[in-house]
């Protein structure tokens, strides 16, 4: 295992919540990535369980359907020894605003230590975080942020390429609705990568250039000389004439296939946050190409990154109650 956790400040991460990448420094991101590296090693060993968060309660509060993110957080919490509760609230059955806060107050009264929240509305997770006493991790809010996804993407790239600095990364597809894109644009920018976004103009948010990226509406132009190609999922309901006329047209002009990938660097790597629409945004064969595709690595890194986030955000708690617990404040080892 790495020793990075020990060399960092004992608290390491000066934030109470992880609501987004926005506001993090390069040092904090590096700290989280280093810590994640150590959990990758743990996850690959036979005994994957630690007692770091023994006695702690982690609630997965999901207002939106999710399988992989929820499972990933659940596994992360359990491997750290926490009690993990999954709570799915169908978004149609709740009214926004007051009810969200009511839910927060109710949960708060149960004394959780970490709340992981996903919500279909941008900003909802921050609103909720203001009403609770525990740490909150944003598991994705509307089209705003999905910080653990950006961290796991960064970890995946860093483990392959050593460093993010100077890499040319293209994020392709539904930028308009994507929280993954927004978090990645922030993180990659902070870490010194050069970011491009490629999408039909209907799926590019206005003034996206102000976020420090170059925008393209042509795949071949945008992919030119890229090291990393990140594809985004396009929701089916958005490709039936509203934003994009059809699946076949989208794949023809914006789907990643071997031919378009030629424009990128010969060793360019492909990423996708999942779940993939094969034959819509990405050619099926390409997604499975083990030489080019990092998609499975991303899933593995996801658990490690979420363990690191849970670890980092509970350090204050743990240091306050150190005499009662046997947790190793130093990290995962």
């Amino acid at each position, binding site marked *: 295992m790495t020793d990075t956790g020990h060399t960092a400040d004992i608290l390491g991460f000066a934030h109470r919540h992880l609501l987004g990448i926005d506001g993090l420094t390069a040092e904090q991101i590096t700290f989280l990535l280093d810590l994640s590296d150590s959990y990758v090693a743990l996850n690959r060993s036979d005994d994957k369980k630690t007692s770091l968060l023994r006695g702690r309660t982690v609630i997965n509060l999901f207002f939106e359907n999710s399988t992989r993110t929820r499972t990933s957080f659940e596994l992360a919490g359990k491997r750290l020894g926490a009690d993990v509760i999954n709570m799915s609230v169908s978004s149609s059955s709740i009214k926004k605003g007051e009810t969200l806060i009511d839910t927060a107050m109710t949960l708060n009264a149960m004394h959780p230590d970490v709340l992981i929240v996903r919500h279909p509305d941008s900003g909802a997770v921050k609103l909720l975080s203001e009403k609770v006493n525990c740490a909150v991790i944003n598991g994705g809010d509307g089209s705003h942020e999905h910080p653990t996804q950006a961290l796991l993407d960064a970890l995946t790239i860093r483990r392959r390429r050593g460093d993010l600095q100077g890499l040319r990364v293209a994020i392709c597809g539904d930028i308009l609705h994507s929280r993954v894109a927004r978090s990645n644009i922030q993180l990659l920018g902070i870490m010194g990568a050069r970011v491009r976004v490629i999408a*039909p*103009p*209907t799926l590019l948010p*206005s003034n996206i250039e102000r976020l420090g990226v170059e925008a393209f*509406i*042509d795949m071949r132009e945008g992919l030119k000389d890229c090291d990393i190609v990140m594809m985004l999922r396009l929701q089916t309901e958005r490709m*039936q*004439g*509203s*934003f*994009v*006329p*059809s699946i*076949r*047209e989208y794949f*023809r*002009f914006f789907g990643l296939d071997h031919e378009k990938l030629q424009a990128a660097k010969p060793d360019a790597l492909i990423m996708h946050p999942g779940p993939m629409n094969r034959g819509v945004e990405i050619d099926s064969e390409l997604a499975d190409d083990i030489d080019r595709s990092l998609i499975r690595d991303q899933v593995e890194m996801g658990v490690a990154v979420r363990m690191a986030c849970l670890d980092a955000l509970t350090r204050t708690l743990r240091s306050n109650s150190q005499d009662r617990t046997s947790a190793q404040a130093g990290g995962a080892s």
Partner: protein
Amino acid sequence: MISSAMKAVSSKNPGRVAYINARLLDPASGLDEVGGLFTDGTKIADLGPRLFNDGLPEDSQIIDCAGLCLSPGLIDMRVQLREPGAEHKETIESASRAAAYGGITSMVALPNTEPVIDDVAVLEFLARRARETKLVKVYAYGTVTRGLKGRELTEFGLLTEFGAVGFTDGLTAISDSQVMRRALSYSRTFGQVIVQHPEDPALASGAMNEGEVATRLGLAGIPTAAEVIMVERDLRLLELTGGRYHVANVTTAAAIEAIQKAKRQGLSVTCDTAPHYFTLNENAVGDYRSFAKVSPPLRGEADRQAVENALSDGTIDAIASDHSPHDQDSKRLPFAIAEPGIVGLESLLPLSLQLYHNGRASLLDVLAKLTTGPAEILGLSGGSLTVGAAADLTLFDLDKPWQINPDAFQSKSKNSPFTDHPVQGLVRRCIVDGRCVYDPDDKKES
């Protein structure tokens, strides 16, 4: 004249043809001189004032133009073919014949056929029918929205690959602002133009121009505001999205002013009008003449003059025939429920030339609006006399006076309000890809 030139009509290879003693008119280069033009196969091989000074080429057909005007073939950017779907009103063949008679070598079909052109299969059908007809060139727009319903965008990319030269919902305005915004935005991906019918549908539910005439006739009026509201909204959306926007059938001073301002602002906007909008005003409706019912409606005299002025000052980029064939059954109805539209292919050139004869525009400027203007808007290759370009040519007698007679039209439909209208300028020959597709002096041709 033109006596030795008969064989080209149906032969596969048009061979080599020398047009001598022609007044060469090319709006693209500003050329206006008597000279010669030489076509080899389907292309223009050479042209110029002194082209045949060293003698006439051998193995060539020689056509003595006797001082007639030889211009690039006219491009009509707004034609309703009615095929598929309403072949009793017009077919690709009858429209092509009418176009050839009108000196039009390329026509661009509106997609409001049945089925509508919202799918590559319909484009393919049109292309095949045009190849079979083999008279003039037929291009087509795709619809902006599926089934002209104004909601879901069509496959601009695939339709472009199959030859769509732009996108429009034809006579239906794209009224939903969000749909229009996305259309302008998405079309940027493929560099295509969005062509709008400039009428707010809710305001444009009347039968003719709103004003004294409508009031006297007891017909529901369409205010000029219906046009400018739509144009100004679209220009705001254009500013927001980028993209290329074209206003079809501009008829009002207010819309022209808005377009002028947007052009000065640097927005990518163009517009066209049709001959009836600068030739006639609302008085042509007269005693409920349904042949004078068009969409947008014929306007008042002040607006007619504004259109004429905008043609003179260059605000209007193109003149289209807005060819809208209708059978008797569609027109012999109470005015309010009669179909709108005028057949225009065969009167496009002479009516446009009135601008020149009345001293409102130079001859090259008038021709530009029928050649380079539409070619540039739609990215078509024709529209100029250029060595190596397709030999699409129109030969016409600039001063020949005649009276329009819709009964003699090649078009299947005769719905024109220009019966007995005196004009000057008669097409004498129409050449497409080096082939003569219309020659009034050739008995076999008619």
